[in-house]
């Protein structure tokens, strides 16, 4: 039964074949996630630890970025509104911008950078130093312990972080409005939320869930399938961030289209 020496012929071309194979591989990865996430035993402790890591890694950066985004957006919008004497509309304009678009996107991009790269690098280095194989041979399911917990943590934490970003962004905006128009905080928030519908909140939450899932899946996939050697680690981290960000923008476009057609 000597295997023959002919290299296999590609169906279309080597590159196109490889692309479709990797798409197929990612779908298998995702379906394995859904199969294993529902099957006990659940790795609760590791899941909580990962949630903490996701929050802890990105909280400082998100606080700063969220606050500045709100502040700067308010500052930049004021002159245009002032031309029509409509600066009193600022709170509702800002809240729509922040809650509908900025908070989910800013949170997702920052997490893709911070969390995606660290998951990618961590799993890849475990892969190349054979720690994942070591789990496998001591009858531990590494997919369940490492991948499922991380994907879940990203999916759960992103909406929470997004809510936090939105709040901090509104605070930034309030600071600027308070300094210029002396609006009180209750009046500011009353105006800000007057134009926010349930659909807005729901769509932002939904987007964040999708973004979190994407970051988790992409970075775990890259780490878990890293090629041998230490260059594989850097590559996995890098590719995890780039692909996550790319997919986040694509999803943003698609989800906004869908929500707008419902509205």
């Amino acid at each position, binding site marked *: *039964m000597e295997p023959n020496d002919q290299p296999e012929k590609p169906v279309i071309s080597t590159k196109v074949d490889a692309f479709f194979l990797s798409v197929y591989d990612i779908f298998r990865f995702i379906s394995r996630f859904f199969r294993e996430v529902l099957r006990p035993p659940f790795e609760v402790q590791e899941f909580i630890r990962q949630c903490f890591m996701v929050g802890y890694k990105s909280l400082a950066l998100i606080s700063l970025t969220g606050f500045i985004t709100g502040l700067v957006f308010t500052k930049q919008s004021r002159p245009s509104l002032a031309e029509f004497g409509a600066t009193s509309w600022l709170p509702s304009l800002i809240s729509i911008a922040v809650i509908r678009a900025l908070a989910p996107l800013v949170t997702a991009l920052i997490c893709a950078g911070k969390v995606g790269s660290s998951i990618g690098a961590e799993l890849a280095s475990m892969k190349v130093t*054979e*720690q994942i*194989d070591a789990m496998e*041979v*001591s009858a*531990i399911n590494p997919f369940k312990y490492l991948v499922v917990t991380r994907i879940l943590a990203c999916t759960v934490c992103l909406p929470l972080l997004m809510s936090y970003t939105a709040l901090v962004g509104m605070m930034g905006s309030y600071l600027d409005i308070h300094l210029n128009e002396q609006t009180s905080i209750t009046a500011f928030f009353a105006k800000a939320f007057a134009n926010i519908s349930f659909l807005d909140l729901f769509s932002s939450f939904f987007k964040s869930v999708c973004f979190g899932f994407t970051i988790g899946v992409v970075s775990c996939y890259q780490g878990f399938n890293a090629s041998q050697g230490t260059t594989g680690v850097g590559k996995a981290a890098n590719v995890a961030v780039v692909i996550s960000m790319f997919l986040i923008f694509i999803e943003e476009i698609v989800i906004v289209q869908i929500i707008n057609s419902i509205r």
Partner: protein
Amino acid sequence: MKTFTPEIDWDDVVISIRGLFKSFGSNHVLRGVDLDLHKGENIVVLGRSGTGKSVLIKIIAGLLKPDAGTVNVLGQEVPALGTAELRELRLKIGFCFQNGALYDSMTVGENLAFPLKRNDPKMTADQRRRLIDIVLDAVGLSQTINQMPAELSGGQRKRIGIARTLILRPEIMLYDEPTAGLDPITCTEINDLINEVQKRFKTSSIIITHDLTCARTTGDKIAVMKEGKFIRKGDFETVFSDNSDELIREFYDYNFTQ
């Protein structure tokens, strides 16, 4: 070329491999491997870098799937096993990785407790602690229990790796280059440890190495791999008495005539 065809006694054989083939793309790594490991025996696998020694033991542990051939471990056909059965079987196989493969986010103690916690959730912390003390004592590193893997030397890491596999009480040990990259004194210590494990824990082992001292002190039998096949099997003297093969001659000269 001498061929070694032992009579198979199924009560006695723990691993039996026949006609094993494995390729990665056009790289044909294993080309017809036959091997029997008997109960309580240490087999040393010798061969140059890249001949597929690691691939062979990864197939035995079910980490890689063979292209053709049978791999029978403790009466079970490894490539045909489902996830749950493979998990059962793996508890009986201890796999020592080339560089220890310790979980570097955990301390030594946590590294040892981890497989126990996952595989026997009912075990109490006290029982775990006792087992950890036993295996750490067996590898002579009790004082490192609270250290991180990054703080250990290469030899210590390998010994902790051995301890971590021993803690599940395996029947078969697979050592991937246990002495590579270590100084001669540490090598001797590891060789003694392998022999002690064989006696104390009653294991059968496959030991992969380039090091003939290790082969001579730990191996009951030597198997020499070349171009994806075993070209010779037998005890140390038999294998090296006939140096008509270039690989065997060079191996011997390199290790013993300097």
